[in-house]
């Protein structure tokens, strides 16, 4: 898991929302994961400071929260770029050349999987089957799905988000 050194700048607003979420799940069995999922939605990621709030409010030890955060691929401790570039490496995409596609994206952006560009614009996230295997190989940029791709199309697609 990559831990970022970008300074935390959560707002009071975000904190109020998080406290609301925690209150909603009070007393429920197995509530930690849903709380963390909603917290990540509020902040975009789960830095130590957010984990600490969850721990303080629920009484769940911080070690346990950290353990859960590092176990699941969905939780991220570093912030994402403005546009997340998800390259599907599911089997259907892989056998149709998704590996080469990822190489090209990494080359174009100068970053690797799980990293964010210095200007905060793009980050790369490898994912497994987005369910559009009919369009393989597939890549998602900022929520827009692109299918039947070849590496030479990457540059033009990324340019749309400049």
């Amino acid at each position, binding site marked *: 898991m990559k831990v970022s050194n970008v300074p935390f700048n959560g707002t009071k607003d975000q904190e109020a929302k998080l406290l609301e979420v925690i209150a909603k799940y009070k007393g429920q*069995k*197995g*509530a*930690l*994961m*849903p709380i963390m*999922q909603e917290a990540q939605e509020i902040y975009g990621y789960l830095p130590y400071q957010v984990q600490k709030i969850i721990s303080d409010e629920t009484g769940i030890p911080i070690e*346990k929260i950290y*353990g*859960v955060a590092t*176990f*699941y*691929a*969905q*939780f991220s401790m570093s912030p994402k770029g403005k546009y997340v570039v998800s390259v599907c*490496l*599911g*089997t*259907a*995409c*892989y*056998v*149709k050349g998704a590996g080469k596609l990822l190489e090209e994206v990494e080359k174009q952006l100068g970053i690797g999987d799980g990293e964010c560009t210095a200007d905060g614009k793009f980050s790369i996230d490898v*994912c*497994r*089957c*987005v*369910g*559009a*295997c*009919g*369009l*393989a190989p*597939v890549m998602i940029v900022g929520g827009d*799905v692109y*299918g039947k791709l070849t590496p*030479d199309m990457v540059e033009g697609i990324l340019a749309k988000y400049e």
Partner: protein
Amino acid sequence: MKTLQEIKDIQAAKHGQIDIRFNPDTAEEAVKTYVLVCGGTGCTSNHAAEIIEELNKLIDGAAKRDEIQIIQTGCQGLCAKGPILVVHPGNVFYQEVRPDMVDRIFDEHILGGKPVEEYFMIEEGADGKDIPYVESAFYNDQLRMALRNCGKIDPEDIDEYIARDGYQALGKALTEMTPDDVIQVVTDSGLRGRGGGGFPTGRKWAFASGDRGKVQKYVACNADEGDPGAFMDRSILEGDPHSILEAMAIAGYAIGANQGYIYVRAEYPIAVDRLEIALKQAREYGMLGKGIFGTDFDFDVDLRLGAGAFVCGEETALMTSIEGNRGEPRPRPPFPAVKGLFGAPTVLNNVETYANIPQIILNGAEWFNQYGTETSKGTKVFALGGKINNTGLVEVPMGTTLRQVVEEIGGGVPGGKKFKAAQTGGPSGGCIPASSYDVPIDYESLGKIGSMMGSGGMIVLDEDNCMVDIAKFYLGFTVSESCGKCTPCRIGTKRMLEILEKISAGRGELEDLEKLDELAHYIKANSLCGLGQTAPNPILSTLEHFREEYEAHIVEKRCPAGVCKALLNYTIDAELCKGCTKCARNCPANAIKGEVKQPHVIDAAACIKCGACMDNCAFGAISRK
């Protein structure tokens, strides 16, 4: 809260709107014109939403607006040709619909009654003649039981589900059957788990059925669908979510549980949305909640979102994850039927397993077990992908051969390439080679040839796929997904991956194959959970069926499929080279030398095998071997 009679009344009232979509040839005259647009994940990613928006805009201004209904369905199956739009009456299929085609379809067909033949979905038959989609093998060779409603009803409207006998199986179970009767019917049907293991569902329920009403129990649904490249369960949840809720309530009645959990991947936003809508509607109708159908049976269902860990598909890990922990498996026994979720007896079934339950209760065990083979009853849904023409969702009776699925329903391998193998069972499964093309698809036959039924992913590989590379792909997956709890899996899979990497880098030795074999068997025997126990399968099955390909990598330092980069050699044919210098200008490694109008040469030592030169040569002078 609705009574069983009220449910039947809704069904009767809806009949005229539904029948035309299921029985286009025999249905009475349609009440309206129905326009079905696929809203599964595949088509949604492919601008289906814009098509619906466009239709809605057009319909707003149309005179006959009350006679037309636009319905966003779940996956209709033929994802490769999406987005799909179907018009009833007439059962007319349009494929690869673009927003700019909607105008004509709307004016000429929907309003004018005259189908736009130019846009018809057709398939080229064996004799070269066009066959309409509805008569094609893709459509006709399937048997849709678990997918019976997918792509044909509005998954966000409980009444449409009710029109298809929805919630009547629950009504029948609660009012006419004892819990033991229910278990007996499921047992007699021969239904086995569709999540991969193939355990008899009725037996599982029976194990958890003791002490009804005395202890807390749970029913859970495994919608984690971890196999990367599979989307069967997602499609059922997106296309027919109520069938799962109904089945879980039936399971709850059978074992004496009043709470259910669906563990669904957070990466499935459409499925989660539709489930939430379905839950709300089911509660409003009293199909979930207290005193269902006026009996004293209470049952409700909650969603839990998985957070992207393959191992959480394993049953004990799934339960630890629902409890809010790191999803690490724990030893069995105790089995979940004895000690499952929060320590209580729990029944966990796969989505597709549940999807079969309501029909079994309504139609009886004999109806179900007339389909399939001696030991594998009913049907199986597959997500067909990879090098295949009709990528999509298919459902066939057990016992159908692999050849039928790939060649007939799947439309064969594109581009005139040769079928090399089909991979089933994902990271836990294996490759079925062309020599076993006629193997019947059932639990036992697939196991015998070193693959497995799995949960339904089926990836077709052609001559351009390297089997060492495929094994490496799956091992890379299991290494990153191993939870790390036990050593054979955590370290053993890593060692196997390293050996594979060595082989594909051209540094392999023949004894590596023995080492792989030995490690594989050790890991299988000593891992705690199914992930580790099955992780070596992709290697074992490719070693068994494609050993000569491994040997070519090791002995001849050659990748026959031309995939493993380190083993490729780019050369320029001096006869064909015109000396245009284009390759040299495009080479990122400056590995190409030559004067203008003179044949160029590649310096093999400097070449990084990127392939740029070959892509750029206009004269086909560069080859890869």
